[in-house]
């Protein structure tokens, strides 16, 4: 585990927002992730990619906030894709039985391709 302070960056790629959470995803940082996604949703963006390449740890509160974003998007018929998850992160979601309820791609470009192809 690296002691990196949490930060969240994002960019718009076509009609999809790509979010980069960095560090330890817990209640405090999870809130900023929710706010970041909420900003895009309020702008009418319904496709979100969360790139976890720099997320080294997530706790159950972080997970619950991620589920919150999934639910918010589901309510507006949007889609969320998770990419670049470490084995540890994938296994964590697997343990909870959540992975089958998520769209997971090895890398960000795969998720963007999937979203641009309109297979939502």
């Amino acid at each position, binding site marked *: *585990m690296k002691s990196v302070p949490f930060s969240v960056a994002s960019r718009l790629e076509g009609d999809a927002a790509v979010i980069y959470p960095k560090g330890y995803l817990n209640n405090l940082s999870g809130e900023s992730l929710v706010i970041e996604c909420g900003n895009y949703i309020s702008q009418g963006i319904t496709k979100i990619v969360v790139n976890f390449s720099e997320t080294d740890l997530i*706790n*159950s509160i972080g997970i*619950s906030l991620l589920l*919150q974003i999934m*639910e918010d998007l589901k309510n507006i018929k949007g889609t969320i894709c998770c990419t670049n998850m470490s084995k*540890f992160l994938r296994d*964590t979601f697997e*343990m909870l039985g959540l992975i089958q*309820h998520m769209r997971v791609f090895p890398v960000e470009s795969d998720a963007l391709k999937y979203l641009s192809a309109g297979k939502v």
Partner: protein
Amino acid sequence: MPFNAIPAEDFLNRENELNYLKGLPALKGKALGGDVFLEGARGMGKTELLKQLYRSLFWEDQAVPFYYSFKTANLKGAYFAKDYFTAFVRQYLACAKKDPSLADNAAEPLPRLMPALSSLGLPWLIDCIENFEEQTRKNDFYWQLVAAIATPVVAAQKSGKPVIVMLDDFDAASRLYETSIGDAHGLISLFAESLQNRRCPHVITGSAGALDAIFTDHSLIGMTERMPLGPLPENLAITLFKSHLANLQITCASSIELEFLDILKGNPLYIRNIAKAAGKMQKQELTKKDLIESYCFEVSTGETAFYWSSVFSRYAGTAANRKAMVELLMHSVENGGLEEVARLALVSGVGVTETEAMLGRLETAGILRNKDAVLRDVIRCCYLQEIAGRDVNDVQEKIAAKYLSESEASCFELVIPMTSNAELVVAKAVEQIGKNMNLNDELLNYLQLALLEVCINAMEHGGSYEKKVFLKFITRPDKLEIVIENSGRQFSADSITHIPVEEKLQAGMKRGWGFKLVYSIMDSVKIERINDRTRITLTKDITEKEVVK
């Protein structure tokens, strides 16, 4: 009875005390000595010293020994008087005839002893019996007591041979009553005359706390000296233990380190009981592991456990009070002492008044002053069995793990405040501990995650005055155990519901994933409530593939 003393060769390191006590009649006769109060922790051998003194006096014939144990006495005055009186007559006769069986023969009515007393030329003892029976016929409670207590003095005066009166657990005499408990305070002062008599030295034992109170009685002040009975030195403790083992035909493995016996603090009762426990467990060649197992047996279900359990019950009075008392004692063990009554009443659950009374009784019994590790383990075992509902095997395993792990393992302790991101400090700590154990990165990540979850849970359920989470990491080559404790709201395994993921997602239940992760990662998760703290014990068995070569 006084004759069931251990063999004299196993009674170590008390020669000076024994010789001093044997010389008491001469000292008291010259006003150079008085009565003696044997002082020492429970199990230190006070009763055994009395028995050894009794046996020695019985055969040496310089003085007549009389032993009476208040431990098992009926404290209703009339019963006590009869019991005390007949015990004295039997023991006196036994000593005169050098026939120990007469002292033990409680079924023999007093009139049947008359011919023997007559043939020994003890008419004054026959007078005593007739006088006592007269008081009994008159139903004169007070004079029955006086007559019984005075008999050893009468015997010493009439025969010219001193009588050494040994009163074991004498503090119980302060609870003598006439018809109902507490109806006749101060009957203990009837012993004053007997204690003052120059031909009748008294050797008494009892709880120091209780006897302090008794010796505020003016009639008893100034006549009694204290004789402290300390622990056996380390080498003698080991010698005694080996001697007990030899008597039980148990040998010690050549590799055995008996330092573990240090925990017994030279207490002869504990030393004997552990040796006996090893015998009961059919050990033949004792290893260190056997020794620890015998100890665990002893503190959970053996004679030591029974002894202390009886003491707790005696001072608790009722079953409900006993439960509250065990709670208080466990609280004391966990917190290194007891604090203010109002808070302790919350722990005991019996209200401030009863808690205060209970603390008084514990103080009187000397239990609170007793800091020995064996007692602490007995309390732990009582608590786990009686309050936490654990079975005895589980309890023994828990105690054994403590000592086995202490010898084979490293132990780290950490206290974190209940502030945001404090759990990351724990994650860092477990990372380094894991590295020290050569655990692979993947396992380390999972351990960190499990710990983060438990710490977050502790912080969520905290909120008490303490605002801290206490962690203990115990590492062994094949196991990592992490104990997390926090005060505050109760959290139990029952509150963890296992709802299917689909159902949870459909119902919009976003929380409640933490313990699912913890249970998935760890091999064992135990949640307990210890007084006002929640304790979660996480265990991870380390497999070969999880260790970096």
